[in-house]
């Protein structure tokens, strides 16, 4: 008995030592990123009109753990960059506001996202950038945003169901609805194949993103007169996809459309290659499988030559390059899809508060459409100081984000979006072939 207690003590000491060791090592390679609830305060400037002085806390909901964890750190960094830009511009623009961010982990789960959102709001946040997964956004929209009268601006929830949500105008997103992207992808496939008289084999991961997207694509493709087989919906948790892969390649379709994330596609891609019939040159996909180069976890033959669309950044270029530059110079996390959307989301939280002259959630919500859409003078974050001066002077403005014109409609969706058509070269590097703008159907 005595010996037993002692060995448990040893275990306890050992375990604590490991934890402290992890924490200790971690602090050496830290790049100054904040902790779970760290607050990044920003300074204020003097000589400003009285109605533009407030202290705003923007809450950032991030999937730091769980399925979507690859998006967490880049998203956090993009939000911090947005606040840093605002900080500089308020000094130059002569307004007396201060902005800070607090972040919380949504664990890629609806329940945790609701907890995280409530925690941020009780910590004083009155506008939330996030959450990321569509299921998280639906839960937070219903049980937090409209009930606590706090706007949420999701950077990445593309589920079409969010458009029709009865949310009293508290739910916004800087990522376009799947309605838009699936039609954009259908247009792209038509152009790339040179017609619609083809049979396309459809497959997607079985979650809100994959299922919603592939259904919309099927509608769009069949409306064009094309034929489809499937869709094969596969559970992201499965260990291998041999039978699903066989079903996808069955009947030698003219092309494939597969909607997935890298995490699952590593397994699906391997199964597809094993069928011996799969040709990645005939694969079309979307934003979930877009990355600067094919990750090591994906068999190269499953993606080399594949084409796809992803929400891009407008062709004008300068804004995009500037964002890429400040992102690179800040060090830390590499670029990731939707990082720029989170930058825009955070920025819009501030601009709407400035236009409202208040940090109240309802007031911010009422201004989000006005600052993002016409009428008004257009400006981007590169002219942020001018934009802030105009808003402070009560002028109408139309903020254009890094990701496009945004132009929120009454449902809180961006009405226009820029898409990039990309292709993975033989060296596994993603190249953007062209860009086009898609507008929501009236």
């Amino acid at each position, binding site marked *: 008995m005595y010996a037993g207690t002692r060995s*448990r003590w040893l*275990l*306890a000491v050992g*375990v*604590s030592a490991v*934890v*402290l060791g992890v*924490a*200790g090592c*971690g*602090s*050496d390679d*830290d790049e100054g*990123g*904040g*902790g*779970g*609830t*760290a607050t990044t305060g920003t300074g204020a400037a003097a000589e400003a009109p009285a109605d533009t002085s407030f202290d705003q806390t923007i809450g950032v909901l*991030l999937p*730091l*753990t769980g399925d979507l*964890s690859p998006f*967490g*750190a880049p998203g*956090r960094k993009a939000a911090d960059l947005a606040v840093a830009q605002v900080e500089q511009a308020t000094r130059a623009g002569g307004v007396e506001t201060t902005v800070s961010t607090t*972040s919380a*982990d949504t*664990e890629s*789960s*609806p*329940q945790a996202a*609701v*907890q*995280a959102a*409530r*925690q941020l*709001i*009780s*910590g004083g946040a009155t506008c939330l950038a996030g959450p990321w997964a569509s*299921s998280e956004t*639906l*839960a937070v929209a*219903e*049980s937090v945003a409209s*009930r*606590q009268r706090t706007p949420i601006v999701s950077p990445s929830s593309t*589920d079409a*169901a969010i458009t029709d*949500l*009865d949310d009293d105008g508290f739910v916004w997103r800087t990522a376009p609805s799947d309605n838009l992207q699936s039609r954009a992808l259908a247009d792209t496939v038509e152009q790339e194949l040179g017609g619609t008289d083809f049979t396309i084999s459809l497959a997607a991961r*079985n*979650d*809100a993103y*994959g*299922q*919603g997207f592939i259904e919309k694509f099927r509608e769009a493709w069949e409306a064009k007169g094309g034929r489809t087989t499937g869709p094969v*919906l596969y*559970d992201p948790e499965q260990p291998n996809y041999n039978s699903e892969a066989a079903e996808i390649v069955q009947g030698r379709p003219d092309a494939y459309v597969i909607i997935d994330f890298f995490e699952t596609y590593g397994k699906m891609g391997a199964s597809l290659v094993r069928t011996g019939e799969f040709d990645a040159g005939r694969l079309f996909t979307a934003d979930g499988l877009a990355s600067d180069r094919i990750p090591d976890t994906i068999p190269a033959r499953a993606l080399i030559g594949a084409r796809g669309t992803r929400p891009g950044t407008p062709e004008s270029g300068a804004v995009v390059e500037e964002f890429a530059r400040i992102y690179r110079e800040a060090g*830390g996390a590499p670029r990731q899809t939707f990082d720029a959307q989170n930058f825009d989301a955070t920025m819009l939280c501030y601009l709407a508060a400035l236009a409202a002259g208040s940090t109240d959630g309802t007031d911010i919500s009422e201004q989000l459409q006005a600052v993002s859409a016409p009428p008004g003078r257009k400006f981007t974050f590169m002219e942020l100081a001018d934009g802030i001066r105009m808003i402070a002077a009560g002028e109408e403005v139309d903020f254009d984000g890094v990701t496009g014109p945004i132009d929120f409609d009454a449902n809180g969706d961006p009405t226009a979006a820029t898409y990039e058509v990309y292709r993975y070269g033989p060296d596994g590097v993603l190249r953007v072939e062209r860009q086009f703008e898609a507008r929501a159907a009236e």
Partner: protein
Amino acid sequence: MTPVFAVSLDALTSADFWIGVGVLAGTYTIFTLGLQLNVGFTGIINFGQAGFMAIGAYSMGILVVRAGWSLWAALPAATAIAMAAGVLIGLPSLRLRADYFAIVTIAFAEIVRYVAQNARGLTGGNQGLLGFDDQWLDVSDTILGWLPASMQDQFLLPLLIVVWVTVAILTGLLMLLQRSPWGRVLRAIREDEDAARALGKNVLAYKLQSIALAAALGAIAGYFLALNLSFLSPESFEPQFTFIGFTILILGGLANYVGVALGSLIMWTLLEATRFIDLPLAAEKVAALRFVIVGVALILLVAFRPQGLLGKRQEMVLRD
């Protein structure tokens, strides 16, 4: 080199924090009461509790949203459906040995989740189910109206009150039931099934009743989960849910109903309070470390008190 380890205590003293933790802890208490009845008192390993929860929550949601029922009629109906599912899954599988039964129940819970994911016409699939809680929100506002003015902005308070009143009633009922002859037969089955059978007890019938009651408790927990999120999606019913329930069960102590509430409160305080840990690390590292810390705390608790906080050692060690 010394790690800066700080937990902001302001957050832990705020009412918002404890109301949020309280709602989750109460929901999981009800969920785990069912596991306690099965595992702690009947000796059947039920890994499918998340499945019963899903059946209850989805039946309620579907009856209200698709069939236009009143929420108050849907609640008892959904509970009955969950109980029927419990009997249905128990009938063929309870004849199996404990470990095989455990496998069957986890498979059952996964079947339920897959059905929820793919029966899109009924459940909304991955896009989820919305709009079943309007009647609850009216009641919630009424309860809020009875409370003092200083609490008016705590909109979760009514849910918290209802959850814990339910916990108290259910715990009381289960304790009464456990003292009855029925409860003593359950314990006898747990200790030695053959002996109970030799005394002329219909062991299968008792086990079926135990699993049906657990399914009802799972369904009730499902309603509170649904009312808290206002949204049902298959992701909320992953097997992980059942395992958090088992953790609570072991934390609180086997064969003790009050221990369930205590274990649940400790588990959720740990899980939610670690959100406030502030380390000079990148945000994603802090987020991951959170779960390491929770895991270590659980290891320590089990290492020092293997019978759980309120459990009795004699009840845990079945055959020495």
